[in-house]
């Protein structure tokens, strides 16, 4: 336990504080959902009876997130760097990548990537003999396509971050004898990373929700489970239960998104440069 200058008790780790705030938001939303339930709008027992469907959906969505964020970030970082290259080839390849993936609606990309994967595997005996679960493989490829879509946005964020490091910083680094690689490692990267974080957080939050699109090609994620439960419930015609299903699905997405965006804000605070706060607003 540490204390700040005014003697107030600080939680030992900034992240902890942020998690507490996040949990607060979550509990508030839950309380509202519960309160509406007590008014008799819907049957809260419905959630308990179907908890395994929600849990499986959440678990599946988490595994999608665990792939889409790192793959998207690596793509975005590499191509963003390529966009700022002085050499013609990496620059034009990166520009083509960004323009293509940025111009595609994510749903179209996902369907297209899934279909093309199934086609290619079906027409190719070598692949067909080796890939048992074609459907699963198609979903994986669609997920990669979605990652690349997110990566195209991240590439622009990274490019803007690199370009916003003033030329004077490069001059100063060169003047003390740092090599180009050292300049990137010790001067450009730490500065661009701080500049890019808020926008990256935005993009991560956005792509988490975009994973719901994968349900259209058969991913059994949270949205799929919601749709599935909803279609079963709709037969009985209970609008209250239908509402509740989507409330729960929305709540789980909210928690996941909050967790990621709050974590990023925590990192942002951790690396904030004293005296530069005003300039970062």
């Amino acid at each position: 336990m540490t204390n700040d200058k005014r003697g107030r008790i600080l939680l030992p780790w900034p992240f902890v504080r942020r998690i507490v705030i996040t949990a607060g938001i979550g509990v508030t939303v839950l309380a509202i959902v519960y309160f509406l339930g007590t008014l008799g709008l819907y049957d809260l027992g419905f959630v308990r009876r179907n908890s395994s469907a929600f849990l499986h959906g959440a678990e599946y969505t988490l595994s999608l997130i665990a792939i889409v964020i790192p793959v998207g970030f690596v793509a975005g970082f590499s191509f963003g760097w390529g966009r700022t290259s002085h050499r013609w080839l990496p620059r034009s390849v990166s520009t083509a990548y960004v323009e293509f993936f940025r111009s595609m609606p994510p749903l179209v990309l996902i369907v297209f990537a899934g279909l093309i994967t199934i086609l290619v595997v079906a027409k190719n005996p070598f692949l067909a003999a080796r890939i048992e679960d074609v459907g699963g493989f198609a979903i994986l490829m669609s997920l990669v396509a979605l990652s690349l879509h997110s990566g195209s946005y991240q590439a622009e964020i990274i490019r803007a971050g690199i370009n916003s490091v003033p030329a004077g910083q490069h001059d100063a680094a060169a003047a003390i004898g740092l090599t180009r690689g050292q300049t990137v490692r010790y001067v450009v990267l730490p500065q661009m990373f701080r500049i890019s974080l808020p926008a990256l957080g935005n993009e991560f939050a956005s792509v988490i929700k975009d994973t719901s699109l994968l349900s259209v090609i058969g991913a059994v994620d949270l949205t799929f489970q919601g749709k599935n439960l909803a279609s079963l419930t709709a037969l009985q015609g209970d609008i209250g239960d239908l509402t509740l299903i989507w409330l729960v699905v929305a709540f789980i997405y909210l928690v996941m998104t909050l967790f990621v965006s709050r974590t990023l804000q925590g990192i942002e605070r951790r690396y904030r440069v004293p005296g530069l706060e005003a300039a970062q607003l």
Partner: protein
Amino acid sequence: MIAVRGIHKWFGPLHVLRGIDLEVTKGEVLVIVGPSGSGKSTLLRCINLLVQPDEGDVLIEGVKVNSPKIRPEWVRQQIGMVFQSFNLFTHLTALQNVSLGLTKVKKMPAQEAEKLARYELERVGLADKASSYPAQLSGGQQQRVAIARALALNPKVMLFDEPTSALDPEFIHEVLDVMVKLAEEGMTMIVVTHEMGFAKGVADQVIFMDAGQIVEAGTPAEVFGAPKTERLRSFISKILG
């Protein structure tokens, strides 16, 4: 110590430096004056190879350094440079700004580098600001940290590119004082400045540049006291007026 022979530099069609020759011996202070756009900054940047000269030689202790055989990083290590806009690394503390070159360029162990960096900050009167970030320092303090950063690498010569031009008037003196002290300690310096007091008091040689050429050169008394050309006369009257 440092000599420049027949340097030419083009930026596209623009002929920025049109054959510059100069020589600075050890411990000497050379002041370069001239209107903006005359090529003073480009000349300094050619000397530490931030800009590659298109023609001509840059010699350090008789060795031609603008040669493909010599790594420019090695050359820049021998030459300290101070910029008009300070260019401190914004994400590092004053101490880290000074020690970065020591640990990464000179490969000095961290503790030793920190000790030396503290000593350099002390030399410019900022021992108490070691853990401050640039954004927390005044312009004058930032420029003094920048001087400490350059000095830490123990350069053979220091280049100053209008070090006080971006400063509020009240901070100009603290930076000039550091520079005067350096000159007195025998540092070889090439200074682009419009500070006439500094030029008259400290310079051994003064060069007046215009349109990429050296128009007049001599002692401060010769250049400022008895200008031979109309261009220099009108320049002096402008900066004094």
